[in-house]
């Protein structure tokens, strides 16, 4: 898990915007990537990233270094992204159509074999994640994409280790069932 020097956090807490920008540069790729995988929308991921860092800035004075800074940011990110995803899902069920929503697509087309494989993996990841619940999705994103271990996931999501384990199991069962059902290919 990524971390940052305590002095930078303290400087940002005192209102130093360049120190806060340092925090943003360190953690924004993580926040944005997690948010994309939870919300499956680039617009929502941008909104989530913005909201997360505003919350982080406002909450800095209350951060007492009891947990790691990275864990704290992961927690804020998960809660924010899941809330945005849920509220968008509610809006979508209430409305007939939504124009202008950019569904996440792999960014730059890359014609090399490795590039095409990466695009296929990104597309498949988005498809699979879309079909599991936000609770299971958050566990699988933290484990598979962010590489957190069970105890780190437990700390971020504030759930017991056994729950982490059972959610990962259910998420993987759901992923495999979905791939079987849709006849999707693991490889390009």
């Amino acid at each position, binding site marked *: 898990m990524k971390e940052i020097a305590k002095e930078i956090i303290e400087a940002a807490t005192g209102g130093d915007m360049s120190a806060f920008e340092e925090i*943003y540069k360190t953690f924004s790729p993580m926040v944005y990537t997690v948010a994309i995988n939870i919300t499956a929308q680039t617009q929502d991921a941008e909104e989530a990233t913005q909201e997360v860092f505003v919350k982080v800035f406002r909450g800095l004075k209350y951060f007492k270094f009891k947990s790691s800074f990275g864990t704290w940011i992961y927690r804020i990110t998960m809660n924010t992204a899941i809330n945005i995803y849920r509220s968008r899902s509610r809006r979508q069920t209430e409305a007939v159509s939504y124009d202008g929503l950019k569904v996440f697509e792999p960014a730059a087309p890359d014609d090399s074999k490795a590039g095409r494989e990466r695009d296929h*993996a990104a597309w498949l990841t988005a498809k*699979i994640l879309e079909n599991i619940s936000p609770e299971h999705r958050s566990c699988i994103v933290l484990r598979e994409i962010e590489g957190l271990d069970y105890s780190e996931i437990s700390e971020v999501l504030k759930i017991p280790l056994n729950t982490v384990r059972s959610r990962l199991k259910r998420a993987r069962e759901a992923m495999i069932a979905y791939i079987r059902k849709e006849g999707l290919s693991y490889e390009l």
Partner: protein
Amino acid sequence: MNCKTAADLILTDHIDGNIEARASGELNEHLKSCPDCRLLAEEAKRAGAIFQGQARKDPPPEVWRNIRAEIEEARENGYLATFFEKMRFVLSNLKPAAVAIGAVVILLVFAATVRFTSMGNYAEIIQAREDVIDMISLNGDTAASESVPGYDLGTPAEIYFL
């Protein structure tokens, strides 16, 4: 090992590299003789591999500009928002004991207020009665007002009928 236990291990500790040596040995033995669990193990591995190539993505530059603008705006409009923010933080972090103490204090203040208000009302009633007595005495019927001193609210008509 049965298939249920094997599936449980395959989808968690085995794939995540947390499996203990003994359980790993038992699982491998089971996999040798169970094609369904072998298939599950293979699929779980391949499903996990999909995520491995995922690179971190940077948010677009306007996200930082928006964050900066929002923070600066909040700073300019600051103090009231900060006060409510602090209150929200304090309330959201109140411990049950603090809530109980707060509730007791509120009850005591409420009880004291009610008591003082009641005493005020009682004094007003007494004063009103005395005013009535004075008014009667101003009517000039001294016999009526003096016959039962203090709380006698009698009038000439009542005296007539009595």
